[in-house]
């Protein structure tokens, strides 16, 4: 079966808690093999990893592991372990995975749960051998295994080959983000508050003072949600941006770490802007650019519109830059403001290449970073940011102090 849901919706958490529940109920009756598409980058590595995890769990001898044998050998030996049709018993009624008498590992009854995280990456492996074999075993009931995949891609079933798809049970579970702000807050509160039952069960000798402190904390959080305007705004913003509880928790780390144990006397927990958050976009780097770099970037972005191409090279950007700066010189000589120094070509080329390093410019030809025989100045680049975006940034003062004057270059043509 497949579990599909966006990042941070708790796919893995759900799976792990289900597995740990099962472990408590049926201890020693099944094995879990955890694979992750990020780590097992091809079927060969994945197979070796399955073998290793099975080996660890079944306490097989290290020497039995095929160290240098090829893919087919490993696969066939795993299949031999997994599939013993003669020994197959009826599936257990409690779990969805049947149990098996595995002769190769002494006499324990064993079924195997395969957890494939980032399932979509397994589907990109050539010919989907691993998926095919796993599904084939699961479907034909040769061995008692269950394959559970988690992924973020909603169309992952489409990427399966036909022969793989036909063996897939087409059982999918979709996990969604909370549909309302209230639901989102319930999740956040769960993470933030202190669970009183847990406190009672875990800390036996918790004094009354501690209890009071925790209760005060919980009510304080509830109070924040209901009354504090700033807190509400913050919560709403995260909800509107990504509905990800994790980014809410991230923003809580700093205020929480500065809390002291003398809490009940002065509950001070307010959330300023998210200091640990991910930057919104590449535009946040504009702040750190030098004047020359910024002007070159604006010049290059202007070219996009003026000459109706999406690529440009240094020569074009530099001549545009020269034109822009000279108009500024004329304008400023009348007003007496000295701004916009015209830098020489060498300096500008250095700045241009730094822009490329920051990935504000990307090479227009794939592999064009090395040039392909074209001189540094003639190489074609594509500008990653739009002129309007830069203009907006400048207007809002997010691109450094005293640069709002450059904003008019972003508007006038």
């Amino acid at each position: 079966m497949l579990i599909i849901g966006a990042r941070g919706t708790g796919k893995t958490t759900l799976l792990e808690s289900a597995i740990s529940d099962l472990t408590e109920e049926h201890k020693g009756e099944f094995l879990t093999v955890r694979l992750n598409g990020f780590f097992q980058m091809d079927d060969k590595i994945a197979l070796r990893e399955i073998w290793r995890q099975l080996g660890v769990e079944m306490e097989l001898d290290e020497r039995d592991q095929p160290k240098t044998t090829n893919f087919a050998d490993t696969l066939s030996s795993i299949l031999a372990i997994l599939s013993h049709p003669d020994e197959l018993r009826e599936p257990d009624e409690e779990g969805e995975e049947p149990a098996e008498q595995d002769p190769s590992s002494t006499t324990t009854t064993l079924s195997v749960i395969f957890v494939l995280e980032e399932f979509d990456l397994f589907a990109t492996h050539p010919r989907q051998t691993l998926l095919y074999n796993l599904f084939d075993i699961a479907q034909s009931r040769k061995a008692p295994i269950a394959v559970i995949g988690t992924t973020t891609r909603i169309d992952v079933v489409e990427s399966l080959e036909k022969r793989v798809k036909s063996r897939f049970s087409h059982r999918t579970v979709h996990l969604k983000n909370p549909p309302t702000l209230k639901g989102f807050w319930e999740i956040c509160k769960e993470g933030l508050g202190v669970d009183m039952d847990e406190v009672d069960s875990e800390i036996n000798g918790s004094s009354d003072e501690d209890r009071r402190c925790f209760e005060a904390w919980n009510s304080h959080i509830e109070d924040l949600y209901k009354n504090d305007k700033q807190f509400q705004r913050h919560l709403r913003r995260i909800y509107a941006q990504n509905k990800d509880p994790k980014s809410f928790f991230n923003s809580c780390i700093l205020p929480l770490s500065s809390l002291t144990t003398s809490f009940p006397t002065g509950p001070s927990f307010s959330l300023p802007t998210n200091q640990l958050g991910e930057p919104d976009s590449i535009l946040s780097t504009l702040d750190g650019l030098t004047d020359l770099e910024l002007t070159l970037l604006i010049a290059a972005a202007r070219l996009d519109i003026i000459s109706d191409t999406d690529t440009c090279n240094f020569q074009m950007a530099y001549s545009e830059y020269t034109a822009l700066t000279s108009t500024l010189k004329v304008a400023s000589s009348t007003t007496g403001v000295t701004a916009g120094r015209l830098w020489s070509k060498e300096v500008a080329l250095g700045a241009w290449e730094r822009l490329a390093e920051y990935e504000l410019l990307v090479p227009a030809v794939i592999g064009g970073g090395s040039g392909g025989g074209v001189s540094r100045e003639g190489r074609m680049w594509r500008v990653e940011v739009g002129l309007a975006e830069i203009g907006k940034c400048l207007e809002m003062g997010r691109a450094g102090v005293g640069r709002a004057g450059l904003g008019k270059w972003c508007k006038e043509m």
Partner: protein
Amino acid sequence: MADEMLPAELLTALNEQFPCRAPQIRRLAALVGTDETPSPPSIVLHGLEATGKTTVLRTFLDGVRASYTWIACHECVTVRQLMERISAGVTENVGGVDAGRAGDVCALGVKLSGALSGVERKHFLVLDRVDRTKEGSSVLLAALGRLGEMIPSLTVIFILSVPKPRLLSSAEPPHIHFAPYTKEESIKILSKYVRRIPFQDIEEYTEEDAKEELYVWQKFCGTVWDSLAKGTARGIVQFRAIVDEMWEPFVKPIAEGKYGTRNYSSLYLLHKEMFRQETNVIDVVVPVVTGEKAVAKMHDLPYYSKFLLCAAYLASYNPARQDAVFFMKSADFGRKKRRGGATGPTKRTAKNRKIHRRLLGPQAFPLERLQAIFAGILPHRISSSADIQTQIATLTSLRLLTKASATDVLEASTKWRVNAGWDYIRHVARSVKFDIEDFIAE
């Protein structure tokens, strides 16, 4: 109790050592913390170059005596090397036995969880400049990010210059932004490194002098920032290099006793020219000798090679359809026609501004066109002993001509391109008394 006191003292010490980085250090303290407090599985540190990411983090980790492994990712050429370094580094720092090497991420995860399973302390894996890995893909980064989730006692810290959204393709890890320094901050930092004024007649160094030096130094830094660094070199390292370079000549009059320390403005006027030049901004290995012409760096080419090079330039920068206009032997006819032809297409009001051909860079041309233009611009008949093909080959080996297509050299469809700038070509053309300006299409 002693442990809890440590961070506060440490923070003040760190803040003294690294001015203007207080918020970042505070965030690091919250995220890294001591061995008792939990840490997130992965942290991202980002900021443009020379904002102190590496130094601050390293000093901080040393300061809290955390157990950490430092991997300089830009030094690893292949993924395999990176993996092996990580596994070797972690096992060495944790103090386990080295049981084989990890060649891929999967094996690395296994090895690290093995090495860190018996360890109670938190371990930090710092991946410095992780965006500079040569072979790294997004899947690799994501896998490295997941290491921290897989192994509870491990925290992976990524250091990179430009953050990309969804870099680790996981729910967002905490980011710490190292903001670029502003003018005031830069000067404050540089004030830690005040250089002496080399006074000539001085017996002892007094506190008064130090104060005066600081005054001049800060004023000077401000001037350099406004005139040079703001425009081109905002990184603290570059800024400091410029200041260092310009300091000695700037304070020479003070050292000689001609100027006092307090009349800064007149000193500035004296050195006004210095802040206009760009020599201190550009890194040069060989110092530029004044008076020597830059054009002197010329190849002494054979006579026909020079014409070939001019022909190649014309072929690269002129549109092929105007060749007949420029290079027909009956010159009068061509001139007339060129004027007529040039006005034709521009009459139409272009919606977009036309890009000058010279700015577009050299265009590719077939060899036959080069030879035809070459024959067209030669002032006299070619001598039968001149081997034109060899000279073309020589120009290619000098990289003045480059092959523009991937096909074989001998193939007829192979295209070529000139690899020399306008200044160079004009010089070459003048040396053979060829008026190349007449032949360039506007």
